[in-house]
């Protein structure tokens, strides 16, 4: 049964060092959860981005929480490169396992479906493949002479998710963000922050039921209003461009990032 906890820090306390954690691309980045993991001093996480990531990954990498990042792309988008990611890759502080978006989706779905592997077109001849010893090329068993890349399934220890709302039974509304469902299904357990916990049973509206993560998958849940800030929570608040630009500037240097981080750590609950 889903545990209802008080704060993102309570959720972060459930994630041991060295765990693999999956998070999905913007909007609705799990920023409050990432801040909590930084505050608890998480280390050696294996970060899987579904399929790409922006500030949330950059700040966790910059704070030293991450040992491996498995991703199809980390960038601040129109705010430029992801400075702490770029630096950590250059220095070797993180090991990057470069992927391509559909491969992440396919492997995550294989995790969701309990498939032992999954074939995917493309990729052959890229340096991605050359640098992924965990990916293989086999002959299509139905058409010999047709090489096909196969991927192992992705099943993170934890899905880190921020959503607009959940009910008191632990069902989480994701609306059109079905990759959050796939992530929650594929992960061994999901830790979820929401803008709001509602009193009525979200399953009552049957037409909307496919847009829920069922409580079966949700190990623990906490309210975290503005928990995606400064990324957007569609329908509630837009991307905070000024804040992300300010992060992008600060994170350009180790000193700037340290200052940003110091501000974060000295006010542990400020963001919530």
């Amino acid at each position: 049964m889903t545990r209802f906890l008080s704060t993102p820090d309570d959720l972060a306390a459930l994630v041991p060092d060295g765990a693999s954690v999956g998070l999905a691309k913007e909007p609705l980045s799990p920023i409050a959860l990432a801040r909590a993991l930084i505050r608890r001093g998480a280390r050696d996480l294996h970060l899987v981005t579904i399929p790409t990531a922006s500030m949330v990954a950059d700040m966790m990498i910059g704070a030293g929480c991450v040992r491996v990042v498995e991703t199809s792309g980390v960038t601040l988008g129109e705010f430029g490169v992801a400075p702490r990611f770029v630096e950590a890759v250059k220095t070797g502080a993180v090991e990057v396992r470069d992927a391509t978006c559909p491969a992440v989706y396919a492997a995550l779905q294989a995790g969701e479906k309990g498939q032992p592997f999954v074939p995917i077109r493309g990729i052959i001849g890229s340096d991605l493949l050359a640098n992924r010893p965990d990916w293989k090329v086999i002959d299509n068993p139905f058409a010999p002479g047709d090489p096909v890349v196969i991927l192992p399934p992705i099943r993170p220890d934890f899905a880190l998710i921020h959503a607009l709302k959940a009910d008191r039974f632990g069902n989480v509304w994701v609306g059109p963000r079905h990759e959050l469902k796939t992530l929650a299904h594929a992960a061994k357990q999901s830790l979820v922050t929401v803008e709001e916990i509602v009193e009525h049973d979200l399953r009552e509206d049957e037409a909307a039921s496919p847009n829920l993560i069922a409580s079966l998958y949700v190990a623990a849940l906490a309210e975290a209003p503005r928990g995606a800030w400064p990324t957007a929570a569609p329908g509630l608040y837009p991307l905070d461009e000024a804040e992300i630009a300010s992060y992008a500037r600060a994170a350009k240097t180790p000193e700037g990032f340290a200052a940003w981080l110091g501000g974060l750590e000295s006010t542990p609950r400020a963001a919530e």
Partner: protein
Amino acid sequence: MSDVKLEERLIHAVAGLLSGSGHIACGVLSPIPGAAAMLTARREGARVSIIGSELPAYRCDGGVELFDQAAQGRVDAFFLSGGQIDGQANINLHGIGAYPQMDVRWSGAFGSAYLYFLVPKVILFRLEHSRRVFPERVDFISAPGVSKPGVHRPGGPHALVTNLCVMIFDRGKGRFRLASVHPGVTAEEVRDQTGFAFDLPDHVPETVTPGAEDLALIRGEIARDLANPYPRFARDVFGIAA
């Protein structure tokens, strides 16, 4: 026609390359390809999906469904770019130097290593035409331009559009051919600014200037639609308020 902006000329040129495509998909960081797709939609009835657009007619979340459509042959044209692009149309979205601890690290492959294989007409688009961007050989192949025989590859590179010219890629030869230069640009200048060898016909035409009808579409309806998801571009190039 001196009042035709480079952006307008490029929109028109890319639309010419897109002709015949029933379904065109565009990434979010490409306002010019997006506008070109919209122009093709208006001229030929093409369906257009723009990743990140909130307009229902163009909406596309850039997620699983786009990749599935591509794999089923339901996407006819797509755009890719690269920090580096070489003469075999290999693209590099990963960085400069020796992988993995590269001297300069970029974002990563995104969907390129998949879509480049599956979308029949991939148009490469890069507004900085220089030897830095177009080396003889990319430092890292995020997605290869050509594949060995036997590799399932219904898709691949069709053309390269830059601030200087349009090149067409010959998949059989694995080589670009200079197809047109923009007004004021010479074939020599293109050769000087390109690090890879390419085919250079005796006569290289000038990139066609859009006619009045197309210009009206570009500056009117398309500029307005472009404001979502490209508010800055629509404002800076066409003076459209977001």
